[in-house]
């Protein structure tokens, strides 16, 4: 049954398939050639031929990947909805700036982004790795082969599917749907499904590329580690691996915190970090990477901790694959807010195989070289930098293990059920679970980040160390005390964490200024440690005293003094219902919902106007007022309900964060009807729901911008002065028009703020100067126009953002300093 379909553009898809296969074959050939180049190393002319071939095919591979991108971009921008990817992730009305985001909404697109970064990084490694090029690039090309299989979309029989291609046709992805038995089915596929409204946000344009660059860069330290084990040369790799690890730490850290900023600005789970499995999945590799960075520094200066370094750096890349497994296969289904429900089984096995292969390669390389790995027999001194750096790395590693165990509950719970008979679920209070444990990691790492720079590698003079650490600790103690008192931080663990954060700040500022005398090139470590400590302080201040200011008083009365989660749940009522025009007390403010920007349209975003006013308690003068515009998509992507984006008022020392949980659907709730009133003389009064209006007289031959006056028209407007309950005075002027002396027309007038509508029903002219008008009035019941709002205060959240920026800046200072130093820096490791 071959149907000739009408109007399809099959060319781009075929071209895309061609590029997919080209890139796959090229990466395969590049891997093969690089392996051969290594194998024939002793035979220089032969080896260099293989190396040239390998380089060429890697460049072809890169070009093909870019071509795939371009083709898919063409399909999306031209709205070729015969392709499943374009139909699923874009729509005609999607603003141009979000077209790129379509790439990372889908699984195929995000694998492509990941592959793309590997290509770019691979090209840099190709140019810079020198003698290690053949080995590192062999590993990088091999990983590219694995990633390439993810977008192959090959079928073997009905059951075995390898990867999924972004160029799949809509009719192939939904086989059997009746619409595709029609040759002209495309005429009915008018528009795509559109981009998830949560992704229509500028953070979603920049956050995924940065995060994926962070994911992709873990491959380079991985490749270098395998390469040195392979070559059995344990010195050459130190400088490039260090540089890549620093770069990686900066980029991945930025990516993770951009995700936090995105969550904070546009998701309504009320914060920047929720210990969600998807967030954890990218945090864990960062922790192992930072641990590996520090052990690598130890190795560079003392020759110790080589094995630990290699294990941590190999693990960081493996964990990226594991996190892909967690987030993309749907295995987290029960536990995560934004786990992507993936292709299920095929992808699960596919990823498991890749992880198994990479794990085997890593273990085999380590085991094979185990006896020749560099080790140092003597014991390090307790007062040495390497001793404490090593301990810090171990703590970070343990922290990563704990987070992984809890995040992976769905992975190991079938096994646990088999053993214990219980079906394990995530902790009921996830935040508390992680916070209770990780606060200790924060304390230890915070204090270590303060003291470790004061120690020297190998040997430190005890007396001056004690004096410097003592002074800074005293200052930090006073600072922490003041903050704890001012911010009312009373939980003792968090008081210790506060001290650790303050110590990190004071000690690193002191170190940078007094000991390093602000020599910029040297400042990398102290600046990034300072940033890290500021992050800890920001997290503590903003989370500890984060509090809702919207409390509902319509429900059950609040009873304080109970603490368990079950009891709090009953009592904390953070949603407040706001009726239009009726002020609600929120913290120091009175908040009033004053209306919305309802404009009809598909996937319309409605802004809700909420006026915040702070008043003097005695004089009732308004001291400060501002508007917030939390918005929501009503019935996005054809679904029921609403998808909300928060709106935030930023102060230097706190944020007021609001979002809509529910809003009345205007199309359904306007149940009020018009009622007739008669007015004759000036002063006639009509009473309203929340005020009254006084007739001020007719205006004959009213010129009005609401209608174009014709020659023979007669227009009369009735004037009313409207007084609302709060004493505000407005005017309303419905219009009566006799067009060409024949046709009647009425122009309605409204007072939006009161939901008041007025129009003429009739006009009886009695004499030249007197008349009776029948006026129809409708007033929306204010109770029909409401929003359900939650408002939270985040104190000192800017400290957190500032800390992240400082930390990343510190990484780049270190990187710049490392790259500017020429010659061998690997002296200590050469033994």
């Amino acid at each position, binding site marked *: 049954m071959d149907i000739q379909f009408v109007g399809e553009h099959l060319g781009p898809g075929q071209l895309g398939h061609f590029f997919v296969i080209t890139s796959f074959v090229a990466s395969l050939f590049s891997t093969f050639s690089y392996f051969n180049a290594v194998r024939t190393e002793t035979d220089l002319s032969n080896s260099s031929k293989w190396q040239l071939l390998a380089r060429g095919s890697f460049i072809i591979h890169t070009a093909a990947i870019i071509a795939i991108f371009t083709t898919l971009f063409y399909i999306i921008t031209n709205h070729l909805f015969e392709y499943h990817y374009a139909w699923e992730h874009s729509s005609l009305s999607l603003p141009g700036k979000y077209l790129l985001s379509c790439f990372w909404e889908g699984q195929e697109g995000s694998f492509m982004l990941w592959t793309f970064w590997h290509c770019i990084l691979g090209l840099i490694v190709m140019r810079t790795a020198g003698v290690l090029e053949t080995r590192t690039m062999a590993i990088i090309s091999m990983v590219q082969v694995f990633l390439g299989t993810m977008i192959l979309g090959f079928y073997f029989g009905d059951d075995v599917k390898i990867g999924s291609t972004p160029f799949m046709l809509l009719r192939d992805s939904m086989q059997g749907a009746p619409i595709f038995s029609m040759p002209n089915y495309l005429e009915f596929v008018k528009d795509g499904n559109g981009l998830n409204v949560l992704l229509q946000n500028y953070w979603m344009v920049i956050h995924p590329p940065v995060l994926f660059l962070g994911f992709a860069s873990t491959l380079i330290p991985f490749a270098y580690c395998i390469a040195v084990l392979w070559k059995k040369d344990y010195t050459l790799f130190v400088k490039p691996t260090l540089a890549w690890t620093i770069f990686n730490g900066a980029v991945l850290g930025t990516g993770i915190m951009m995700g936090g900023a995105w969550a904070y600005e546009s998701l309504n789970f009320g914060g920047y970090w929720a210990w969600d499995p998807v967030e954890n999945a990218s945090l864990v590799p960062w922790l192992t990477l930072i641990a590996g960075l520090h052990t690598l520094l130890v190795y560079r200066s003392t020759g110790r901790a080589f094995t630990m370094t290699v294990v941590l750096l190999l693990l960081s890349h493996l964990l990226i694959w594991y996190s892909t497994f967690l987030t993309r296969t749907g295995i987290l289904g029960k536990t995560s807010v934004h786990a992507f429900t993936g292709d299920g089984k095929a992808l699960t096995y596919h990823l498991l195989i890749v992880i198994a292969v990479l794990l085997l390669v890593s273990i085999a390389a380590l085991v094979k070289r185990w006896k020749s790995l560099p080790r140092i027999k003597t014991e390090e001194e307790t007062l040495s930098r390497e001793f404490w750096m090593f301990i810090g790395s171990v703590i970070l590693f343990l922290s990563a293990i704990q987070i992984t165990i809890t995040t992976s509950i769905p992975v190991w719970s079938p096994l646990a059920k088999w053993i214990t008979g219980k079906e394990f679920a995530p902790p009921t209070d996830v935040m508390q679970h992680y916070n209770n444990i990780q606060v200790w990691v924060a304390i230890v790492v915070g204090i270590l980040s303060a003291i470790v720079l004061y120690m020297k590698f190998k040997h430190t003079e005890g007396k001056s160390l004690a004096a410097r650490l003592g002074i800074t600790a005293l200052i930090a103690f006073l600072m922490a005390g003041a903050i704890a008192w001012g911010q009312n931080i009373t939980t003792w663990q968090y008081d210790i964490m506060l001290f650790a954060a303050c110590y990190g700040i004071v000690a690193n500022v002191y170190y940078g200024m007094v000991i390093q005398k602000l020599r910029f090139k040297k400042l990398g470590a102290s600046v990034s440690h300072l940033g890290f400590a500021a992050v800890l302080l920001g997290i503590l201040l903003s989370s500890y005293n984060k509090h809702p200011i919207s409390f509902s008083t319509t*429900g059950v009365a609040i009873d304080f003094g109970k603490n368990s*989660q079950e009891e709090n749940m009953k009592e904390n009522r953070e949603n*407040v219902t706001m009726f239009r025009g009726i002020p609600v007390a929120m913290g120091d403010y009175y908040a009033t919902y004053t209306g919305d920007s309802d404009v009809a349209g598909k996937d319309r975003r409605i802004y809700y106007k909420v006026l915040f006013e702070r008043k003097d308690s005695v004089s009732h003068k308004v001291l400060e007022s501002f508007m917030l515009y939390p918005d929501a998509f009503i019935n996005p992507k054809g679904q029921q*309900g*609403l998808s909300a984006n928060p709106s935030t008022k930023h102060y230097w020392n706190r944020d007021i964060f609001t979002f809509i949980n*529910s809003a009345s659907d205007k199309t359904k709730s306007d149940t009020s009807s018009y009622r007739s009133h008669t007015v004759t003389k000036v002063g006639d009064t009509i009473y309203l729901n929340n005020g009254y209006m006084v007739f001020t007289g007719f205006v004959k031959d009213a010129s009005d911008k609401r209608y174009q006056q014709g020659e023979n028209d007669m227009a009369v407007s009735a004037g009313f002065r409207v007084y609302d309950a709060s004493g505000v005075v407005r005017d309303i002027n419905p219009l009566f028009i006799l067009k060409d002396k024949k046709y009647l027309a009425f122009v309605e007038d409204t007072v939006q703020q009161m939901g008041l509508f007025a129009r003429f029903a009739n006009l009886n002219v009695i004499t030249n100067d007197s008349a009776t008008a029948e006026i129809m009035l409708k007033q929306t019941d204010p109770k029909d126009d409401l929003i359900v709002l939650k408002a939270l205060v985040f104190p000192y959240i800017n400290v957190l953002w500032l800390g992240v920026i400082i930390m990343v800046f510190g990484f780049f200072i270190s990187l710049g300093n490392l790259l500017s130093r020429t010659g061998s820096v690997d002296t200590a490791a050469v033994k």
Partner: protein
Amino acid sequence: MKKIHIVLLILVVAAIAVIVTIFSDFSTYETFSSASRKPGKTYYVIGHLQKDKEMTYDPKIDPNHFTFFATDKAGESHKVIFNGEKPRDIEKSEQIVMMGYEEGGTFHCSRIQMKCPSKYKKDQIAEGNKS
């Protein structure tokens, strides 16, 4: 034995102790009847929304109060109170995971996760109010 080994040993022991204690943090999946054996303790219950029974949510009265009926895996029907706004699309869910505790014959729920039938739609979680 080197100092570093002693310190590592202490850390590993501490880590094992922490890992053992975090197991007591982990919750379990229960049914309404097994959850009712320990009233006031929070569990997860997997079940289905009863679409034919009454659902009430009126933000004019209380924006944090949504009640409905659900059946658990054992087939038992039960009244559920969710202290949050009514989750969108709950009518379309094919399975719901409720986090909450049993008390006085009703299940007090602070979090609902909905599994949706369509492949083209993501699962959703509705958070009630806590801490």
